[in-house]
């Protein structure tokens, strides 16, 4: 267990950076709202950002060892299939995660 002072520092740093990113741009970017390039970006960023975050969360997937990547690949397929089928975020997330937990704890992968 890390030292509590270090943990408090970590939480404070993470919170301060996050809040700054959420609050400070209102003073800077406010006047830019009308600019056409900013409107172009703000309409297209959200989708792309989520695609990048998804890729980021898969960065440690061991592509050289397909057997080790199998639980994640299957769980992701289940998540996507459930979501395309039922359009229910809770079901897709809980279902995909349950499949992942089940596979990781039962498959003899080592």
């Amino acid at each position, binding site marked *: 267990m890390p030292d509590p002072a270090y943990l408090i520092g970590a939480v404070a740093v*993470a919170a301060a950076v996050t809040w700054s990113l959420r609050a400070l741009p209102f003073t800077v970017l406010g006047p830019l709202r009308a600019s056409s390039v900013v409107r172009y970006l703000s309409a297209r960023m959200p989708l*792309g950002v989520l695609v990048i975050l*998804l890729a980021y969360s898969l960065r440690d997937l061991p592509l050289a060892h397909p057997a080790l990547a199998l639980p994640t690949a299957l769980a992701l397929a289940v998540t996507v299939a459930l979501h395309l089928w039922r359009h229910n975020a809770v079901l897709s997330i809980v279902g995909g995660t349950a499949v992942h937990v089940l596979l990781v704890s039962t498959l003899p992968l080592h």
Partner: protein
Amino acid sequence: MPSILVAADDPAQPAAAAASPRSEALAALRISGSVGLAIFPIGGAFGMVVAHSGLDWWWASVFSSVIFAGSLEFLVVGLTVAGAPLAQIALTAFLVNSRHVFYTLSFPLHRVTGRAARAYSTFALTDEAYALTTGEAARSWPGRRIVWLQAFIQAYWVSGATAGAVLGVLLPIHLAGLEFAMTALFAVLALDAFRARRDIPVSALALAGALIARFAFPGELLLAAFALFTASLLARYGYTRRRETSHA
């Protein structure tokens, strides 16, 4: 992310008629219900990850209420357990949450009045709060309702995280693989964003940026991917503008 968020069947109440604070809180509670159903279990998964990481369970409550940025919280657990330097935590926070800068462009902060309310509203500007308050149905919502909505979203997240952490302590078995909840959340949000805006070129540019970053700059994947993606969008903007002017 419309499918989880659009359930807000707002009966188009005129903003002026809904002046009493209590009715705004109730309206926000109703609107937040569907998001809460998604947020509570993910908070629970986060709490379990905290409990299994070796940190005391109540750090889940501290992380979720003070940092209040889901994906970053998952990462900070791993970083602190590994004893990462604070500078690395600051850089990670910056990279993971720099997307929030773009939320500034359309979040209706101008409707929120009062210093404390405005401060809280920026603090609680999560992906979910942004998605709910910038949709079509939200155009008539007064600031008070927006702030209540953000408070409910935070309440779901903190209570989910706390419940998950307590459960994680009580459960004798170690549930390996729970961290996949984060991947599942991003997959779901990306699918919903794609359904709202079927933009294949944008998805392809983002994916290409992520893949190039993954292999060329593995240590700075997020920063490199966002930079490449933004640069490619700007190039595309310049290109379409030039074509439009030359055709005009």
